[in-house]
């Protein structure tokens, strides 16, 4: 596939990179506060209770803190959404970006289930990450299928 065929609009590059940086910042903060809960600045009364979520049994999956999984996701996502990665001629870079966004969204849905149904609390910062992930998915579903030749371009 030629370079021009992998092009996407500039707004998509700028938006996904910005969203990835936001997600990276939030997940970094959540990772820090996972290990230092006293550093968490968040209401702890009622339904919104960040500490109850970040220190819950569901804050680990297979022994790995969810915060670290989130941080790892956004480190990779930031790299894949960087302007340099968007310019990559390697098709797998663009496929990996799109697949990772879908996997991340599925994981976010599990976390929302855990917060609402199991823990009975929600965490504001986690919700910020969830919204960021959803926004990334929307942008990528708008541009990636056409970029990868899976759908007709909007301009065609």
């Amino acid at each position, binding site marked *: 596939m*030629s*370079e*021009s*065929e992998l*092009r996407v609009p500039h707004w998509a590059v700028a938006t996904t990179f910005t969203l990835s940086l936001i997600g990276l910042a939030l997940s970094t903060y959540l990772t820090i506060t996972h*290990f230092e*809960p006293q550093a968490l600045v968040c209401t*702890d009364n009622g339904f919104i*209770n960040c*500490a*109850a979520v970040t*220190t*819950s*049994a569901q*804050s*680990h999956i297979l*022994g790995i803190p969810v915060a670290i999984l989130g941080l790892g996701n956004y480190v990779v996502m930031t790299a894949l959404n960087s302007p340099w990665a968007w310019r990559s001629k390697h098709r797998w870079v663009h496929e990996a970006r799109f697949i990772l966004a*879908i996997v991340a*969204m599925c994981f976010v*849905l599990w976390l*929302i*289930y855990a917060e*609402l*149904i199991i*823990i*009975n*609390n929600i965490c504001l910062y986690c919700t910020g990450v969830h919204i960021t992930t*959803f926004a990334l*998915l*929307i942008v990528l*579903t*708008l541009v*990636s*299928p*056409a*970029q990868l*030749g*899976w*759908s*007709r*371009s*909007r*301009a*065609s």
Partner: protein
Amino acid sequence: MPKSSRHQRRPAPSKAPAKGGRPAGLFTWIAVGLVVVVVAALVIIKVTSGGPAKTPSSSTFQPINPGVMTELTTIPASVFNTVGITSPIAAVDPPQSVSKQPALVATNSAGASVPEVLYMGAEYCPYCAAQRWATIIALSRFGTWSGLGNMSSYSNDVYPNTPTFTFIKAKYKSQYLVFKSVEEYTNYLDTAGTYYAKLQTPTSGEVALISKYDQPKYIKGLTAAEAESIPFIDYGNQFLVAGASYSPSTLTGSSRNEIAGALSNASSPITDAIITSANYQTAALCKLTNNQPGDVCMSSGVQTAAKAMGIK
């Protein structure tokens, strides 16, 4: 395709791949639709199922599982000695010594005056939850427990549902020590929903002890705002614990049975934290009992802890 071509580096939209297949935006609609449906379903389930499930209260006292009781109180000496005070994952604080204070004593079941260990905490408190594991183990080396119950810390607090035990009906029998406990609050809110339901009321003497000793003057690192915090343990007015000796996060993600089952495994990070704290507390208790019983107090794990605490 020459890369230096401006035209080719910024192809016109009409030059973009106009492949056949699904219309543009279909993926977006599918993704948004699925996410919205799933989240809406979760919200509906949440709203229609009401609030959080009620956690067990002391009014429905649940005795400790006999298997867990055995695992908790018959830890092999080799585990205590192998762990010593080595807890590579979780930092563990030893009890702090105080000097020149009047001895805290009580009369045991045989009528003898022996050192008293006073615990003050609450069932909702996750720090108390972590502390109880090590305190029960340490005291089990000097006597026998009965009446311990299962408990979890409050579900909406930090470190929610930390698995632990309650002292609410506990009895401790020892020729060396007397153990007294106060669980001031349950792990659920009162009917007004303003604070935890009241459970046990400390005596005036117990209030005087926590008011005097759970202060920055006696506890290094304690701030004025943290004065009289729980858990508070007074070991005969010679050693004090204020706050958990190790972080409750150490127990996060593990069930009561899993924690208890790992206590015979000296390489478990959770066991390392609990046993290190137990060895420290045992060293403090040995000071109170004049190193009785000898097989416990002279063991290498306890001696290592005593040395680290500066106990002679």
